């Protein structure tokens, strides 16, 4: 049984349930179950009570999903109305369901479509609905809360569209009609009804798209009823260092640590990024993307883009959160870079191939080998090279930074007073020498320097280089 580590952050399935005057219904689920597997789980075998219950061991499919039937899911996921408006979390063996059940107001009058030829009768009313994600039980709590967030966003959009034009009721009606049609078919080996629903229902396609995106890129963009945009990103898929995801708290901390002396490095080309933006996006965002550069710090960027610093911070944080940019120190001659411990230096990695295509005649491992020892940009460049080659070398460094192959090193200063021999009478043996920290990122004031005489101070500088993650995300 093999799990890719990314699979812990992917959902097992997405399920849409409703509860109303027609009872609890499962409208749609994706991925589809094969009908044959479904029936086997429903057979009530006369089990000997002494037989071992192998839960979590052998009989389950590798995804850890015990293949719940549609009916039981409808019962357990369409909750009572007092659970609405809150996070819904249910764990059954090794599957965890998370959703946000939402109450729909009873419409006082139900608009029956004028083109509907059927005789006017009591339309079934939907009381509540829930978009539920099934996850593996060992999913990180932060993943669970992100999925809940997405469920809630979709619910808000659906609730709005339902109130405006009964969108959900209409889609539900379509889905149920297809389900009824399929179950009435007497042909052998019926297909899953949900497969038939997909081409007919936009909502079903949206849910499938959400599921597919969550399993691959982690970026979800839906247009509910071709009108309301629901966008969401799963940080666990987008921000990965060395095969592990960056925990959301670390991400939050680093976003708060953006400073005016940092620079913003886009991860896509300017053109590609602008093409991804929605039509109604903020013009400030567009301006920022057009003016930013890896050699310009955020303060300068604020001036060039004619925005205030706070706006720059907010937009930069937004771009970093969505995985479209990273925070670096502005590129300059004295920057020292080194090979990142998480870099993939394999000869056959997709990165090596991409590098070879981008920079013909050069190969990635040789370039990375140069950074095995910390190298400053000025040392990396050869002043005798033609300026074209020089420019290409800088592009290579930027390329490597974007893919987190390089980290930047910074120098910190620390002040350590040696234990003085004459004063040993005054100090206890166990007393450790006075330590103060100057410079670097410390905010300590120079008052620490008032201890000790100037001569001791000058004797005591200790320099060291410590590794510092380039994008100010701590290495986990």
């Amino acid at each position: 049984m093999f799990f890719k580590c990314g699979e812990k952050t992917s959902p097992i399935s997405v399920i849409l349930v409703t509860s109303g005057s027609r009872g609890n219904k499962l409208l749609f689920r994706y991925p589809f179950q094969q009908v044959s597997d479904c029936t086997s789980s429903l057979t009530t075998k006369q089990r000997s009570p002494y037989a071992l219950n192998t839960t979590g061991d052998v009989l389950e499919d590798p995804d850890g999903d015990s293949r719940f039937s549609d009916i039981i899911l409808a019962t357990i996921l369409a909750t009572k109305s007092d659970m609405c408006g809150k996070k819904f979390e249910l764990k059954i063996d090794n599957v965890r369901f998370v959703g946000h059940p939402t109450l729909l107001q009873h419409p006082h009058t139900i608009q029956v479509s004028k083109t509907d030829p059927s005789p006017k009768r009591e339309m079934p009313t939907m009381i509540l609905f829930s978009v539920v994600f099934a996850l593996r039980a060992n999913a990180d709590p932060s993943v669970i809360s992100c999925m809940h967030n997405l469920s809630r966003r979709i619910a808000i959009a659906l609730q709005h569209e339902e109130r405006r034009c009964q969108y959900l009721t209409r889609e539900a009606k379509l889905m149920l009609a297809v389900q009824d049609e399929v179950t009435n078919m007497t042909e052998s080996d019926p297909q899953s009804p949900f497969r038939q629903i997909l081409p007919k229902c936009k909502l079903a396609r949206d849910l499938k798209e959400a599921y597919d995106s969550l399993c691959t890129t982690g970026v979800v963009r839906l247009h509910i009823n071709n009108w309301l945009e629901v966008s969401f990103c799963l940080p666990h898929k987008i921000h990965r260092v060395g095969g592990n995801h960056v925990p959301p708290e670390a991400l939050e901390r680093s976003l708060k640590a953006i400073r005016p002396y940092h620079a913003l490095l886009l991860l896509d080309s300017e053109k590609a990024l602008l093409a991804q933006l929605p039509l109604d996006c903020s013009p400030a965002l567009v301006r920022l993307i057009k003016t930013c550069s890896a050699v310009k710090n955020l303060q300068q960027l604020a001036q060039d883009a004619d925005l205030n610093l706070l706006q720059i911070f907010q937009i930069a944080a937004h771009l970093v959160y969505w995985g479209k940019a990273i925070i670096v120190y502005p590129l300059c001659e004295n920057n020292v870079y080194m090979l990142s411990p998480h870099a993939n230096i394999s000869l056959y990695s997709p990165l090596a191939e991409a590098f070879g295509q981008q920079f013909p005649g050069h190969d990635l491992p040789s370039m990375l080998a140069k950074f095995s020892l910390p190298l400053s940009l000025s040392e990396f460049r050869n002043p005798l090279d033609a300026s074209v080659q020089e420019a290409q070398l800088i592009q290579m460094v930027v390329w490597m930074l974007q893919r987190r192959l390089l980290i930047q090193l910074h120098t910190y200063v620390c002040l350590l007073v040696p234990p003085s021999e004459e004063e040993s009478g005054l100090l206890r043996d166990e007393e450790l020498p006075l330590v103060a920290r100057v410079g670097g990122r410390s905010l300590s004031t120079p008052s620490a320097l008032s201890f000790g005489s100037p001569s001791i101070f000058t004797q005591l500088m200790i320099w060291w280089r410590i590794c510092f993650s380039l994008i100010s995300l701590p290495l986990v």
Partner: protein
Amino acid sequence: RGSSCIRIECIFFSEFHPTLGPKITYQVPEEYISRELFDTVQVYIITKPELQNKLITVTAMGKKLIGCPVCIEHKKYSRNALLFNLGLVCDARTKTCALEPIVKKLSGYLTTLELESGFISNEESKQKLLPIMSTLLEELNATGACTLPIDESNTINLKLIEQRRDPLIVQEYDVPVFTQCKDHFIKSQWDLTTQQILAYIDGFRHIQKISAEADVELNLVRIAVQNLLYYGVVTLVSIFQYSNVYCTTPTVQSLIDDRSIQEECLNYVTKKGQKRACLRDVFQLYCGLTPGTTVRDLCSRYSQQLQRVDERRLIQYGLMKALIRRLQKYPVKVTRDERSRPPRLYTGCHSYDEICCKTGMSYKELDERLENDPNIIVCWK
């Protein structure tokens, strides 16, 4: 061991009454689960057949209920089946994974008791449940364990086991080192394989060497060490050689900031029989470890600072506490003729440590072989 941080707020016994339907028959403390809460969650407590015998955890109204619904079918019961569920209630924010095996075990115990002696269906014996539940609640919260005889042939044995993260895979070139003094661990509690290899774990022998010297098969050693790793008894560092290269990590700052780490470090790295080394020297030594500097270089540059410091323990401590990290060498064959085979080991995926372990070459031999090959470049990371 003391109580774990899981606090069980309530234990309840729920069943399907032939006329009243699902209800809570007993709960300790009384009245903890409100009528409203039970109405909301009863579908997850007394469940449809498809959900029976599954561990179900539902969160509602600020509480988490963990149960395992049981169904025993027999003609003798009214409605031909007995449905019940003994569950636990915690605050919604509690991480309850460790309680799941307990709930499962309890459901197993009750099933056995019912099948053997009708413990639950008999109204008289059913009443014994209440004091049992009280004792369970008290003892599990106090000590995380409970041993309770029910009748002559049945005793309930429960223990809350801390859930730990899966350990890393142990490689043959990894070196296990004890996180605390070896004597803390009672030898006889471990399995035979572990007992055999314990003496060879000294923070310098790697897995392959331990296997050879202790005469235990390699995979068994790996599994035993992985087990020790799981319980936090050992941690892994890399093989020590004077040709190794290390560099500092941001954590080295903790040596300056954290008094307890300073104390621990200085005690650990001072040479036996010498006066305690001073922080300045030790810190300078750690900072002297940079890419391109071997341990041998460090020793010659900082001989004065090393007078009171054992460099092997310095490196060991630095690795254990992640103050420093090892820079490994990875050879990559970047160019080759069309006719030669594609590289198997020189792909950038295998370090010198690994290659030497797998092929039996020494570092020096590998170095000599690769240095003269113009097709091979070396990356350090």
